């Protein structure tokens, strides 16, 4: 089933087309990679999908429903979460607070509840903390629960950012260069986490990455962008042997 469908999407900025007529789909349950040289439009694509930009033309469909006209927070509530390339943790809040701040959709707290149904609020707050603690355990973050986010080591911060995105109960997770700044061991760890997310939690993953080894090893399908166009899409073997891709790699700037 096509969970995410990008149909002829273009996005212009003052006459310059950052992405031009790009179409592809992501199958449910896949780990799907998006690669390309710098400036090929990968992050712009993510920004269009997550609702930060509206496409200049074209449409984005999620679970067979159009989402390209929705504001970002509604897209998230529809089941699509993303992380950013530069970490955007809630720096002055602890790890637990970072997670708890997010878990709001499935827990169903409304503002009015704070005034009328305090019991309900107290129950939901308790549940929230339990759910958050479980998530922290799952991602080996339990020991950091009370540490302020900006005091964490870099690798832990990255893990937390992913855990936090998962706290929204998404069906699809967009990861923007999750391996940036990680060493070999940490990158392997990351691959393990991504596989765990797909295999055990059943969440479809789309990731932008520059680390070719990692991409080729865990992605089943790879989409290649170059200068805003879709170059080619296929399995890691097909893509890594494609002549156009190789010349783009050698000729372009990574």
């Amino acid at each position, binding site marked *: 089933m096509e969970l995410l469908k990008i149909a002829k999407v273009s996005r212009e900025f003052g006459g310059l087309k950052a992405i031009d007529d790009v179409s592809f789909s992501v199958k449910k349950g896949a780990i799907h990679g998006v690669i390309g040289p710098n400036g090929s439009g990968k992050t712009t694509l993510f920004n269009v999908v997550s609702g930060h930009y509206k496409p200049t033309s074209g449409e984005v469909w999620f679970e067979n429903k159009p989402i390209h006209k929705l504001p970002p927070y509604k897209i998230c509530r529809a089941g699509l979460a993303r992380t950013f390339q530069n970490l955007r943790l*809630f720096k002055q809040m602890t790890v637990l607070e970072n997670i708890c701040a997010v878990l709001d959709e499935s827990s169903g707290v409304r503002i009015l509840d704070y005034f009328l149904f305090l019991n309900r609020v107290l129950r939901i707050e308790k549940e929230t903390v339990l759910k958050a603690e479980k998530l922290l355990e799952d991602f080996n973050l339990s020991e950091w629960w009370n540490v302020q986010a900006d005091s964490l080591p870099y690798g832990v911060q990255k893990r937390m950012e992913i855990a936090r995105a998962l706290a929204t109960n998404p069906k699809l997770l967009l990861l923007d260069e999750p391996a940036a700044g990680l060493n070999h061991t940490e990158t392997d760890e990351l691959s393990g986490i991504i596989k765990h997310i797909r295999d055990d939690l059943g969440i479809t993953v789309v990731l932008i990455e520059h680390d070719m080894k990692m991409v080729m090893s865990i992605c089943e399908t790879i989409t290649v962008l170059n200068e805003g166009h879709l170059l080619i899409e296929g399995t890691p073997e097909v893509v890594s042997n494609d002549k156009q891709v190789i010349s783009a790699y050698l000729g372009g700037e990574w």
Partner: protein
Amino acid sequence: MNGTVLIQSLIGGLGIGSIYALVAIGYSLVYRTMGLANFAHGNILMVGAYIGTVFYVSMHTNFIIAIIISSILIGILGMVMERILRPLGKMDLIYMMLGTLGIGIVLQNLAIIIWGTDGIAVQYPIKNEPWVIGNISISPYTLVIICASATVVLALQFFLHKTKLGLAMRSSAQEKEMSLVLGMNVNLMNALTLGLGSVLAAIAGVMVGPVFYVSPDMSSSVGIIGFAAAILGGFGSIPGAIIGGLTFGVLQTMVATQVSEWSQVIAFVIFVFVLIIKPSGIVGERVVDKI
């Protein structure tokens, strides 16, 4: 200055300082979450004071219920304000601040049209017979103000640190885009913040009515000092706002015991002095730079 006068004015100063602190927290809360200096804050305080006082004096509502009614109405006013200011905020923060200026003027004149310029004298909601300990008389109502303000502040901190909504409000402030992408309706969070800040002003306004006098010039007399207190403590810092408010209150009262005519001025002289030495205010938190 002898000991009795010192202690007496300390207590009185803490009382009025608590009011300033509530007002200052309102300013700082909105500034740190929205980057907005709300110039209508003092006017909101005045309108809140009038609403609560009218219920208490004319309709003989219980004082606490009058405060709650005023809080609800003013909270809604704050949220409506956010909605009105939102398109300006999208353009530039400066326009949004000008907008608050305009709204403040409208509120001030509306209040005068509705309630006139005469003002309302308010009786204490409790039997205000002073407690005498040795040479010192303590006005019970002053203690009520101090305790009530402390309670409000504690409840606020609990809300902001231990509830989902509070955490969501803080995170929307720190990282707007990330919060959006994590499913939070940031516009709603901002509206709640402005509403919450306004509620603090309304509570302060109604509580201070029996001590002073509810009149249109409360916007400037209490409002401006609250603003200065927020800056003194470090604009955007809640603990700073508390320190700033209490400092102003105590300073004003103590100076007034010595040199009456200087009391209004001296607080601002010290204010300028502190800012020259430490521009980020007493607590000196690095302010969220949204401009």
